[in-house]
């Protein structure tokens, strides 16, 4: 089946089987291996990407369901070569050890901060509660998200057309 998914702003057209999962479409068809494939049961959250501006677990979404929609992956977090504050926060606060859960953690964190720019620790833990860090590095993950909240990206100046 022919599908076109806009991934990180780029329309990508491929011929796929309907049973292909979005996580494998991203990794195997588009070589976007930043999205990790973990538990396969929608428990661990390693595979979280945005589907139309909302984080979802891509091991439990069919690629064909994303056709005609927008997907954002960890590769799409940076802007013009500048890392997203969430990425900087994970770097500054040692928010990762093995790094397997990190892409999913960061995608959900960005979504949280867009909705709630100054979240409490409890709000961060709640937002990330569907994601597992098997290094158990949760303390530093929460600190990383707080760091990002305290160091928001400078908004580009509004240009009047």
């Amino acid at each position: 089946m022919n599908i076109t998914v806009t991934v990180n702003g780029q329309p990508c057209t491929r011929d796929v089987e309907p049973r292909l999962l979005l996580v494998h479409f991203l990794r195997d068809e588009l070589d976007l291996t930043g999205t990790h494939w973990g538990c396969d049961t929608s428990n661990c959250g390693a595979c979280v990407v945005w589907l139309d501006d909302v984080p979802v677990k891509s091991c439990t979404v069919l690629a064909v369901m994303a056709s005609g929609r927008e997907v954002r992956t960890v590769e799409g977090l940076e802007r013009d070569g500048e890392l997203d504050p969430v990425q900087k926060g994970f770097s500054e606060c040692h928010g990762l050890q093995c790094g397997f859960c990190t892409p999913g953690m960061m995608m959900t964190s960005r979504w949280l901060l867009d909705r709630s720019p100054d979240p409490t620790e409890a709000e961060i833990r709640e937002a990330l509660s569907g994601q597992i860090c098997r290094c158990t590095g949760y303390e530093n993950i929460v600190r990383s998200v707080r760091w990002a909240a305290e160091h928001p990206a400078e908004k580009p100046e509004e240009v009047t057309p």
Partner: protein
Amino acid sequence: MQVPANFEYEKATTVEETLALLARHGDEARVVAGGHSLLPMMKLRLAQPEALIDINDVAELARIRIEGGMLCVGALVRHAELLDSPVAGEHFPILHDAERVIADPVVRNRGTVGGSLCQADPSEDLSAAFGALKASAVIRGPDGERTVSLREFHTGPYETVVEPGELLIELRIPIRPGVGGGGPPSGGRYQHGSAYEKVERRVGDWPLAAAGAALWLEGGRIADAGIGLTAVRAEHFVAPEAEEVLRGAVPSEEVFAEAGRVAAEHCDPGSDQRGPADYKRHLAGELTTRALRRAYGRSQA
């Protein structure tokens, strides 16, 4: 790597189109929306539909609205949308209580209200919440539309009255003191409150047990009550015997405790990896009492 078996994929954009596709593909077709129950089952070959009909674009099913004195929740409403809906929370806080403890925020972004009800897992939360509220389900098929009380919706574990070829459209909950009648015979207004209490082993897990309570009060007495239970094999996810204890009573700690005791007595929990039966039975009673206490508090707020 877990991958579903092959299937034919169809995308519907309207209810009519969905019903036509269901008719064309017959008994082996399944409707998919969030897919968070169906796709894991397909990976494990516990389900192997020959065709999937994707209803994610059927916008008419994705609305929460008030119509005819009822709160109507479309089958395609995502869990996160019900949790974020001020109108749902204002009238029926039990829905927000329940949604807050269903799976996790990312799963709630994708999973749908209708999908959870039609999956009909015996530990599902919304079945108990909607059961407590005495909601009804609107189902459409080739022969037209029918409305079924949620208390007749489930026919067993993973089984509902939705037939092959039919589609769950929405859930309707009467807002009894409001427009459209259904208020107390005196012509006044009910005081209403509702709440949901759940014990889970870890965040996002299925409940060991959970209870929902809804109270409608008039003149200092309980005019009507709804008790929902899940994960404890309560028939149709409700506890009518406990509701009988409450009806006509003056609300008190003693009455709430007695309703809890009766609810616990009439369910039939089994022992499994989540916990032993006697503990679940204890929870069913205690959580019923707590939900009633909180529902009553809200009715007086």
